[in-house]
């Protein structure tokens, strides 16, 4: 450091000259701009703003100035230093952003790599269709009833107007539980749940009953000893076949779309009178004259069988404690397994039961 300069001559103190400071500042700003990496910029900072930088050295010369000149010189240095720091800060931000961009580019992955490290589960379509049907009816204000699969003979047959010698008992090949004298069966339909509902609740009753049922059919492509049904039962004042038709039409439209209609054909079931078969408009050809003849789904009929239904036989009402003078009702039932196989074009019913995960997986958690 120089000795105090009593005889002030700023020109003699070169580093503090205005033009010299401008040059130092410009050099520093240029160096900052020229730095292309944060490492280079760090070096520039040391060289142009560090302890041994020209600006720092110039600052030390202030003491050599006469007091009256120090303020001006200080201001000049401050301005130059400010400009340099500003340039450094701006360039730092710029370079940081560039470096981040570069790093992110380097981190690019192949997003088409398989990501299925965790297995994906699925629910069986028979489960899902039972829930779908239940939801349609729950939305109408119905409830879902359930009952045991090993059932009392009385509930499976007698209470439903299928007496011991009723010819219809031969139509249903029944699994009998040992010993046969104990009068227990694997339920042949979900109808005993209807009886149970009437026996334990007071009308009005609106219940839908999905569930497993059993018949002594050997398993083959189109038969299984176990299958699934959904039945419905409504008991109220003033119900008629027309309400049955309305309910089935609504059900059909909810499942198959708003264009769907149903058709009644006379039939016979012991637990209903009058009884009807209900057909669905063929959901493939829609009974379109141009297509129906060659339609494989309905075999040219224009309609496909859907289920059985009718007005609840008053004998059933009596056995289940409902007064037929006050109440009437209707019931219907249809198979669910065939709904799945026909809608998804599944040729072999056994596929539903084998447990091959490739059968269930495509259904995911909803139909």
């Amino acid at each position, binding site marked *: 450091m120089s000795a105090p300069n009593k005889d002030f001559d700023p020109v003699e103190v070169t580093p503090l000259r205005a033009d010299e400071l401008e040059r130092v500042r410009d050099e520093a700003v240029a160096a900052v701009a020229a730095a292309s990496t944060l490492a280079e910029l760090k070096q520039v900072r040391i060289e142009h703003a560090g302890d041994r930088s020209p600006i720092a050295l110039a600052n030390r010369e202030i003491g050599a100035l006469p007091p009256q000149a120090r303020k001006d010189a200080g201001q000049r240095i401050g301005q130059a230093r400010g400009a340099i720091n500003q340039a450094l800060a701006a360039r730092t931000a710029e370079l940081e952003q560039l470096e981040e961009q570069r790093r992110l580019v380097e981190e690019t992955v192949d997003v088409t*790599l*398989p990501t*299925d*490290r965790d*297995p994906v*589960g699925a*629910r*069986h379509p*028979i*489960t899902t269709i039972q829930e779908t049907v239940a939801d349609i009816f729950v939305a109408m*204000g119905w*409830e879902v009833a*359930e009952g045991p699969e*090993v059932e*009392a003979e*009385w509930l499976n047959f*007698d209470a439903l107007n299928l007496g011991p*010698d009723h*010819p*219809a008992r031969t139509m249903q090949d029944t*699994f*009998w*539980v*040992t010993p*046969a*004298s*104990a*009068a*227990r069966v694997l339920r042949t339909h979900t109808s005993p749940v209807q009886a149970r509902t009437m*026996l334990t609740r007071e009308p009005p009753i*609106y219940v839908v009953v999905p569930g*497993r049922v059993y018949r002594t059919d050997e*398993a083959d492509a189109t038969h299984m000893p176990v299958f699934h049904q959904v039945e419905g039962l*409504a008991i*109220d004042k*003033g119900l*008629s*076949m027309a309400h049955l038709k*309305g*309910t089935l*039409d609504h059900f059909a439209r909810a499942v198959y779309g708003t264009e769907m209609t149903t058709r*009644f*054909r*006379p*039939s*016979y079931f012991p637990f209903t*009178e*009058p009884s009807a078969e209900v057909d669905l408009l063929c959901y493939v050809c829609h009974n379109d004259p141009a297509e129906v003849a060659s339609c494989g789904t309905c075999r040219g009929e224009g309609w496909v069988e859907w289920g059985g239904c009718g*007005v609840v*036989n*008053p*004998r059933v009402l*009596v*056995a289940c404690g409902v007064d037929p003078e006050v109440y009437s009702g209707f019931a219907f039932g249809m198979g669910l397994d065939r709904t799945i196989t026909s809608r998804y074009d599944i040729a072999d019913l056994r596929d539903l*039961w*084998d*447990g*091959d995960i490739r059968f*269930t*997986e495509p259904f995911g958690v909803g139909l």
Partner: protein
Amino acid sequence: MRVPLEWLRSLVSLPDVSTEEIAERLTMFDLKLEEIVGGGITGPLTVGRVLEVRPEEQKNGKVINWCRVDVGALNEPSVPDAPGDDVPSRGIICGAHNFKPGDLVVVSLPGTFLPELGFEIGSRKTYGHVSDGMICSTKELGLPDDATTADGILVLEPGSAQPGDSATSLLGLDDQTLDLEVNPDRAYALSLRGVARDAALAFGVPFQDPADAVAVPTGSGGYPVRVEDPLGCPVFTTLVVTGVDPTRTTPSWMARRITQAGMRSISLSVDISNYVMLELGQPNHCYDRDKVAGDLVVRRAEAGESLTTLDDVKRTLTPEDLVIVDDNGIIGLAGVMGGASTELDDSSRNVVVEAAFWDPATIFRGERRHKLPSEAAKRYERGVDPELTLRGAARVAQLLVELGGGTLEPGHTTIGQAPARAAVTFPVDLPARISGLAISPEDAQLTFERNGCAVSREGDTFSVTPPSWRFDLNDPYDFVEEALRSAGYENVPSVLPTPTGGRGLSRSQVLRRRVGHVLAGTGLVEVTTLPFVGPADFDRLGLADEDPRRTQVLLENPLSSEEPGLTTTLLTGVLKAASLNVGRGHEDVAVDEIGRVFLPRPGAPDAPLYGVDRRPTPEELAVLDASLPEQPFHVAFALVGQRVRRGWSGPGRAADWADAIDVVRRLGEALHVELVVEQAQRAPFHPGRCAAFRLDGSVVGYAGELHPSVASAYGLPERAVAGEVDLDALIAASPEIGPRPEFSALPVAKEDLAFLVDADVTAESLRSALVSAHPLVESVRLFDVYTGDPVPEGQKSLAFALRLRAPDHTLTDTEITEARAALVSAAEQLGGVLR
């Protein structure tokens, strides 16, 4: 029921509409069309006389016949390359050998379409000749197989036609037959009489009952009869026809109708018997009077008695069987089948005609007991018109006289009489109210009357007496169906009922769905399996002999003796499913099943068979329920192979016992129930890698690694894991309202503490000791288990991450120190030493 259209039209004058339209109307009248049979043959199907047959042996050793056939006006002037004389004929190649020159056969000349073959016959070169058509078999013509023609060509009766005649009309092949499905309640429609009545109703045309046209003998006569069981046999009629010429044959019109109706033409007397059954619906039986000794007696069989039926089978009878007996013993099983000893034969001239009304239930049981379905039993078990016995027998006799040359002996024997039908009363608006269709009382009355009912109306009440042949008209609603049938099922309007509002799904239904979704979200694929299992399944699971799961609900009639009952555990199903998938090449399989298991209830009462005239009392219903096995819903699952799949990001992770336990833990969490995990030993699991889950003190399930021998028995890789839980128990314990969220925004203090404990101290016991060690402990999580140097032999190090927090203030150092001391001291209670 096969209804020949020509026969039907002879009984009722139907409008001139297509067969399809008749079938459609009858279908909508509860006589559902199964199919239209016949009528599809077009083109020159012709009667031919075989002139020459020249057998020619082929290279393969097979002999074919090069034939010349005279087809009358359709002959070609000459047949080049034909055997024998060059006279007008056709040359045809035929592979069958059951005909000879001079025989009359049926020839499908080029241009004939046979539906059985599905194509049009052409002239074609075969076996070195031009075959100008085909000589037809019964099968190719769509005729029922007959013992005499089953092996080849249909050879016509000599003299029954001339060459060149149309075989289509000769054989009635242009006739169409409606195959109708007759529901069990419409027994009357198992006859032309019944179908014709319904057809008349369906088309609104008049109907003349053919039974009314039968002349009925009066006065006593017939053949003597004693009925010892009038309940089983309410009406029994006999007539006698003598002098029947046994050489007479069935006229072709009758044979054709019988054949078209699906039965076989056999002999004149048998055909007449069947014809009357088909025509009027009255089954009947003809005995050779010269073989019957003494009175005909109707009684129940005695134990040990037997009968050789017409099908040559000796049948042992029971006291429930209703039989017909003469002085020599049993000669018939009532309503089901006759006996061989008194049947008509080639020389029978004198005939006893029997027509009866049998109790339907007796016939139904007998037919089932002897596994002897017959056309007669089919009608009797559903109900034959009880007023018809005399007319039915008289119609048989009439035909035996007209066609067989016999003489009807005067009088008849008829024991008993048809039960009277009670009138049914109901409001006149019932048909409209129940059908939802505007059926006026006047229309309803007309319908009832046209069905044969006697109707009277008083004010707003009908009193309707059904006709004798309608077994299905007993209750008011039965008449609603009748009225609706005429008004048209297709006209029922569509009206959506409006329930007053339900309560939605039940809680257990909601929770079962939740469990299904949680399992799928855990990567499990749901399966549904058959519940039939047997001892071999339990062996595969490694169940001990005394394991209660071996006690099944057994079936009287299982489909397979290997699987005699229902399953007690869903593991049988999921392990089979896992096995199937592994067998089909899947390495990684995760399957689950939600379903019922069937657990016998020791000492359960028999299920009572109550009457149906009233609701059983609550106590009676409780007995029904108590008689049934327990059938709770369970969940079972199996995990095989990798739980996290191997791939570009790493080697994956095999499913292990902890995954099995974790599946159950997730279920517990989903249902907000607290499952306590305990070490357990239970088949089918690895004895050291099985957890029991305790809920409110009771064990509700198990999970873990499968015992290696079980895995191997199912063809699964070692280390496969599985589990099963009583879902009903979990759902029952699931609280209506789940846990309240409790958390604090104040700062947390974290402490990691590791303890040395003896190897047999479980992680859970130490964890729960720490959780309850101090009120400030918010959570405790095990993050490391370590054995080996420097941990002494027989000990392990368990390291826990603890979070301490107060709900209302920031913890002070003093509080943290105190809590830490309490934790250490709690561990010490279990012999733990802070590391």
